[in-house]
Structure formats: C-alpha cells, structure tokens
C-alpha cells in the first residue's frame, strides 16, 4: 500500500510499505478515509524524535472504515466508520482505570511508536478501547478532528477546570487552540479570548468558534487581558501554541489562584520558567497528552448536534500522493494553511 514515510530530517516521501494485518486478537485494520497533519508531527519531521526511524509512516489523527477485525473485538465490525484516538491505550492498566489513557503502561501512539495513518490502511490495536463508531449524520471532515485536536482542546478546558462565568485565555489559534476555546465556551465560560499573530486563524476563531481575539503582534497581550478581565487576569490560561514564550505569558498573566494548562508538545528542559509567579500567585499548572478515549464519545455527540464544527480547519485537502507538499504548506503556514488533510 501507499504511505507517507519519514526519510530523514525534513524529508518526506510517499512510498510502498507492506499492508497492515491483524497481529493480536483485539486489533482491527482500518481503511483510512481521511488523515490530517498535526503540529506534533513537526517535531518528528525535524528529526528530534530519536525513536522514529527512516521509513516510518507518519500520521495519528484519522477517520476510516473497518475492513478486518480480530476475534476478540466486540464493538466493531467490517464496514463500520470509525474515528480512532491518536494514543493507543490498553484499557486494562492502572492509568487506563483512572481514564488517563495517554499514560497507558502498555500503549503507544500512531505515527510515533506505531505505523501512522497517512496511509491507505492502518492497524489499530486495542480497538475496543480506542476506536469509536461515527454516527451517520457526522461528515468525515468533522469526525476526523475528534481523533485528536478536539479531544486535546476539550481536555485542556476540562482539566484546567473551566466553569460557568470564567474568563479564559487561549494561546494559539491553530486547530487545538480553536477547539480548546470552543470547549471553554461550551463549558460556560463568560469570555474566551484567543491569542495569535496570524490574522486568518484569528478570523476563524471569531467566525467559527465564537471567541474574542487578540493579535499579539499588534497588541500588548498582558495589558489587553488585564483590561478584558477587570484587572484580575484570566481565570484559566490554556497554552496551545507550543511555544515557550506562550507558556511564560500564560503563567505570568493568569489571575491569582488561577489555572494554567499546557497543551503544546514540549521536549526536554525549559529555562527561565517564571516559578515565582506560580508560587506567589498560588497557581495550578497542569499538562497532559491527549486522553482521547475519555472525550471522543461526548465530542461525537456534540458534533452530531452541531455544537462543535471543525470543517473550516481543513484549509488544504490533498491526495496522499501530495502529502509532502501538504506538510510544507502546514509547516510554513503558507497560503493560510491551518491543517492539511490527506485522502489516501
């Protein structure tokens, strides 16, 4: 089958790889209908992940159709349309019992530890835990983002403790930032402000998400947030830009006793972390990779009701054969690219 393979730092190519097959009794094999780029792929693409080898298949956010299932699979049958959580979780370890699925002791992640979804087919282990049937009324374009972006954004708002009446600031107007903002609105926040420097993304956040926006290149973000929160600072700050400066700002601008959640993917150490702001202001700082299995069923319900729309995020839809170009557009943000979606 055809698949997008990592060939070395910043080198991608579509090549032939063996078809996946059922390897354990809880597996399914999915024919990929749509698969989308993610900012976390850029770490792999740049060569900073030591576990990814030449020839590995990228991609972890996808929707598809079941073509084969192992004998222990209970919830899925051939022909089912499914969306799959990007983190593979066993459902049987202590962390899964706590619903912290991305911490699973026996799992992994598509496109990192296991063959990814930018391919014609993908094997899904522990399918009863991580694959979810998509209701007929939801389009592929919408369901696709339940796989990771929407679940990540919702997790940030949920675990940061967004509640009715809160003022929430979100750093980053990419897919995760926009969907974190939407989650905060649906959880009852009074004001939700999205911060970015790209006008096209901020326009999307206003038009499709219903959030207020701040262009950080044109405005003093700190002064603006203080003004819009009556001098208190945001109750909840969600970092979805994947930038150290955004983490620092979120910590420094959060109100006393507030909550900061880091959604961006960071590796290694961070210098000049404003720890004094955390201790002096009594902040709660949390982070997590995506516990998608916890949220995807609820997200699909909200998508079916039209509360959560994502189609606008797929700014560039390309055949899989053009995936290297799709990643170039995504990485450079050329032509207003928010996400590139691949059709195998």
């Amino acid at each position, binding site marked *: 089958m055809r698949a997008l393979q990592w060939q070395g730092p910043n080198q991608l190519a579509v090549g032939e790889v063996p078809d996946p097959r059922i*390897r*354990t009794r809880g597996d399914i094999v999915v024919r990929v209908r749509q698969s989308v780029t993610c900012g976390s792929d850029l770490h792999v693409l740049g060569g900073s992940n030591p576990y990814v080898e030449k020839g590995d298949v990228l991609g972890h956010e996808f929707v598809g159709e079941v073509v084969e299932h192992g004998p222990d699979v209970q919830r899925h049958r051939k022909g089912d349309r499914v969306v799959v959580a990007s983190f*593979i979780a*066993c459902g*049987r*370890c*202590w962390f899964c*019992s706590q619903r912290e699925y991305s911490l699973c*002791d*026996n*799992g*992994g992640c598509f496109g990192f530890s*296991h063959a990814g979804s930018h391919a014609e087919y993908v094997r899904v*282990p*522990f399918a009863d835990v991580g694959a979810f049937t998509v209701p007929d009324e939801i389009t592929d374009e919408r369901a696709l983002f339940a796989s990771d972006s929407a679940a990540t954004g919702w997790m940030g708002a949920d675990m940061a403790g967004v509640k009715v009446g809160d003022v929430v600031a979100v750093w980053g107007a990419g897919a995760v930032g926009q969907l974190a903002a939407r989650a905060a609105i649906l959880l009852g926040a009074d004001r939700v402000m999205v911060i970015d420097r790209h006008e096209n993304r901020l326009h999307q956040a206003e038009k499709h998400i219903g959030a207020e926006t701040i262009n950080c290149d044109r405005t003093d973000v700190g002064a603006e947030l203080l003004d819009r929160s009556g001098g208190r600072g945001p109750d909840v700050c969600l970092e979805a830009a994947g930038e150290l400066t955004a983490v620092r700002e979120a910590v420094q601008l959060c109100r006393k006793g507030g909550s900061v959640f880091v959604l961006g993917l960071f590796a290694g150490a961070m210098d000049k972390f404003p720890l004094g702001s955390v201790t002096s202001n009594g902040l709660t700082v949390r982070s997590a990779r995506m516990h998608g299995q916890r949220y995807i069923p609820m997200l699909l319900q909200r998508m079916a009701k039209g509360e959560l729309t994502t189609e606008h995020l797929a700014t560039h839809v390309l055949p899989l054969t053009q995936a290297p170009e799709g990643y170039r557009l995504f990485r450079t943000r050329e032509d207003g690219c928010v996400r590139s979606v691949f059709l195998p």
Partner: protein
Amino acid sequence: MTRILAAAVVVAGGLVVARRLARRRRAVAPAADRRWHSLTVYRTLDEVSANLPDRLRTLEVQLRSAPGGRGTELRVRAAGAGLPAGEVERILRLSRSLLEVGEVLR
C-alpha cells in the same frame, strides 16, 4: 594553510575529548546489574503470583500488594552473575504487559 592547521587542531582536540569520554564511560559502566528493580502491576497479588511470566522465573522475585488498590509491587533482580544494564527493566516491562493485557504490543 592557517585554516587547515586550525581544522587539524579541532580534529585532534575532538579525538582527545572522545577518548577521555570513552575512558570515563568504561570507568563507570557496571559489569553486570545486580540491583533490585521495581514496577507495579495492576493485578492482585494472587493473580500475579499465579501467572508469573516465564522470563521472571530466572530472576529473584519479591511480590507485595501495592497501596491504594494499585495492584502488586513486583521487585526483581538478576540471580547469579547479573544481566547487562537495562535488561532487568526490559524484562519487567514486558512482564507487566503480559500480566495486564496478556500480550506485548508490537
């Protein structure tokens, strides 16, 4: 010529540093791992002791219930001459997968 000499100095300096690092690694690298290693399995003490994977039977094994309903603490170390560094941890991780899900995800 100056550039060639400078390059030679850099290469020579690099070789000296590399040799020193290699000596330091040899000096601290343990010949064999005889330390105890622990890991918690989300299964009861009875389940773990009744289903101990074969790979663990070559090691010294201690079991006790983990607090807070977290399962069983599995403590092992290499018997006899020991194992290469990292091998005991690898066996522990594989054993946990076998005990919790019956397979090792590939």
